[in-house]
């Protein structure tokens, strides 16, 4: 388990301030944030490449803050692979294991095992420069984990790869994470990495961690507007007008939404709605309050998914639909549709 306590680092003009983070053994944590947030500096500090001027790094109970990188047992994988060009794939992987595994037979077996898991058995005698990006990254991961590090750090490991290769690599990483019982901190700017790999997510901006928690929790209840905007969630403000058992009616502008919460009448609240939790149909669904009409303002195609901007008076909502569904509904700019949001999908925070 790794714990960062008030970690602060200065690097030229850039500062990391009071970073606190705890990652349990076997956990997969993604750190996400815009460019320049300090994600790479943070994980390079964990690896021991930058010296913090304040705070501590505790790994499995040991204070490793001032230990050199080679004494930490923490591996790192970079987006540009960093395979040693003067070594073959086999030698690269062996390089990662030699400090831990002295017996030649065991070394060979371990390399064979990891090569099999990562699907690179046929590449062992090749030089890195002859490999594709995806293959190189699989080798780099194999090299990083063969010695079973206490912590694996990955710095945007997929960002130099195309979408399909990335999808395949995510599967490899998932498999190897369980096989080797790895604790992982993965820096990314791709929200899909978070959804598909992480147990927990930390949102970073301007050298600090703004929010850290379970993925589901953070993504449905952003701590502030920056997080909400970054993770692309809808935020609305409204007032509770009526309590109906477990349900309340919230007035947002002239629109009434049904929300599940135990806050009482008269309170102003903020509500968060994920774009994929917004249902759209051409005919009025039989749900009563919580269903309203809106106009399609904009349609943004984005691979297999389509981003839809819906407006109703002064409310704008982002929704995500599949391309097929958009075609099926015959959606186009200016078209009127019915919008429905399930009460349990609306998260609430008091203002």
């Amino acid at each position, binding site marked *: 388990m790794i714990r960062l306590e008030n970690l602060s680092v200065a690097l030229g003009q850039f500062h990391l301030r009071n970073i606190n983070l705890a990652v349990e053994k076997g956990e997969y944590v993604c750190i996400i944030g815009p460019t320049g947030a300090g994600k790479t500096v943070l994980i*390079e500090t964990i*690896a*021991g*490449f930058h010296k913090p001027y304040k705070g501590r790094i505790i790994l499995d109970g040991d204070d490793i803050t001032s230990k*050199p*990188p*080679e004494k*930490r*047992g*923490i*591996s*790192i994988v*970079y987006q*540009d692979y*960093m395979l*040693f*060009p*003067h070594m073959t794939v086999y030698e690269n992987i062996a*390089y*990662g294991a030699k*400090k*831990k595994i002295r017996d030649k037979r065991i070394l060979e077996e371990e390399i064979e095992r990891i090569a099999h898991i990562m699907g690179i058995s046929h590449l062992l005698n090749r030089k890195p420069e002859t490999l594709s990006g995806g293959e190189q990254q699989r080798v780099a991961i194999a*090299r*990083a984990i063969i*010695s079973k590090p206490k912590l694996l750090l990955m710095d945007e490991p997929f960002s130099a790869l195309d979408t399909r290769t990335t999808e395949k690599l995510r599967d490899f990483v998932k498999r190897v994470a369980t096989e080797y019982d790895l604790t992982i901190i993965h820096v990314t700017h791709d929200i899909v990495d978070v959804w598909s790999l992480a147990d927990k997510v930390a949102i970073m901006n301007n050298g600090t961690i703004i929010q850290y928690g379970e993925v589901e929790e953070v993504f449905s209840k952003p701590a502030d507007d920056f997080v909400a905007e970054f993770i692309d969630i809808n935020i609305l403000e409204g007032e509770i007008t009526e309590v109906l058992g477990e349900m309340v009616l919230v007035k947002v502008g002239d629109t009434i939404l049904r929300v599940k919460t135990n806050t009482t009448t008269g309170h102003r609240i903020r509500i968060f709605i994920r774009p994929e939790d917004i249902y759209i149909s051409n005919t009025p669904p039989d749900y009563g309050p919580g269903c309203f009409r809106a106009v399609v303002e904009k349609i943004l195609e984005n691979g297999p998914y389509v981003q839809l901007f819906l407006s109703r008076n002064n409310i704008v909502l982002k929704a995500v639909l599949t391309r097929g569904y958009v075609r099926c509904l015959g959606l186009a700019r200016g078209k009127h549709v019915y919008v429905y949001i399930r009460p349990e999908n609306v998260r609430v925070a008091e203002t």
Partner: protein
Amino acid sequence: MVSLILFSAFIALLVMITPTDFIRSLETKEMQYSLRLTITTSLTATFLAIIIGIPVAYALARKEFPGKNLVKTILDLPMAMPEIVLGITLLLLFGHTPLAQLLSMIGIKIVFSPLGIVVAQFFSALPYTLRILSSSYETINPRYELVSRSLGYGELETFVRITLPLSKAGLIASTAVAFARSVGAFGAVLILAGGIYMVTETLPITLYLNISYGNLSMAVSAGILLIIASFITIFIIEKMGGGKLWR
């Protein structure tokens, strides 16, 4: 055009004397002494320039320390300074300072001695060695070293296993250039070591002494040997260092 003129100059030097004259010159005691002295002092100076150049160049390329730019400028200075001025500064340093007294107390004589040749050659070669080595370290992504460190290898081991092989071209080129600078060092050698006949006489000194005596055949032969040394250097840089260094 420029290369044509240069080429003609080389040819002029080569046709100046007959092959028999050349061989006769090589057979003289003076030339053999000079050749042997040049090779031993140059090899020693090159060895020292590389051994000292590697850690210094690495520190200049990788480490941040206060006054780094000043250190860089001082180390580069001999490259821009006339060699003869380098010679006089070294002469003063090793002739008239407490350092000189200290050295002479332990029996080391640098001024007007073959050891002075090595010192002069070393300082003529060092800035070039540093330049080539540190630029070859700068082209290596430091993340290679960071990855190696994270895999359990210390700083020195990482340097030997990763940085050194990746900077092989630079090492070969800087060795060749250091050797060429050492062989050709003249002004500094003349001032510090004195250019004494058959004592501190290296090939450039042989050329100089014999020109002054009017012994053209000996002077030209020394010149030809120096050109051969330069050609070998260029050949080594091109063939073994590979164009890689100059990208």
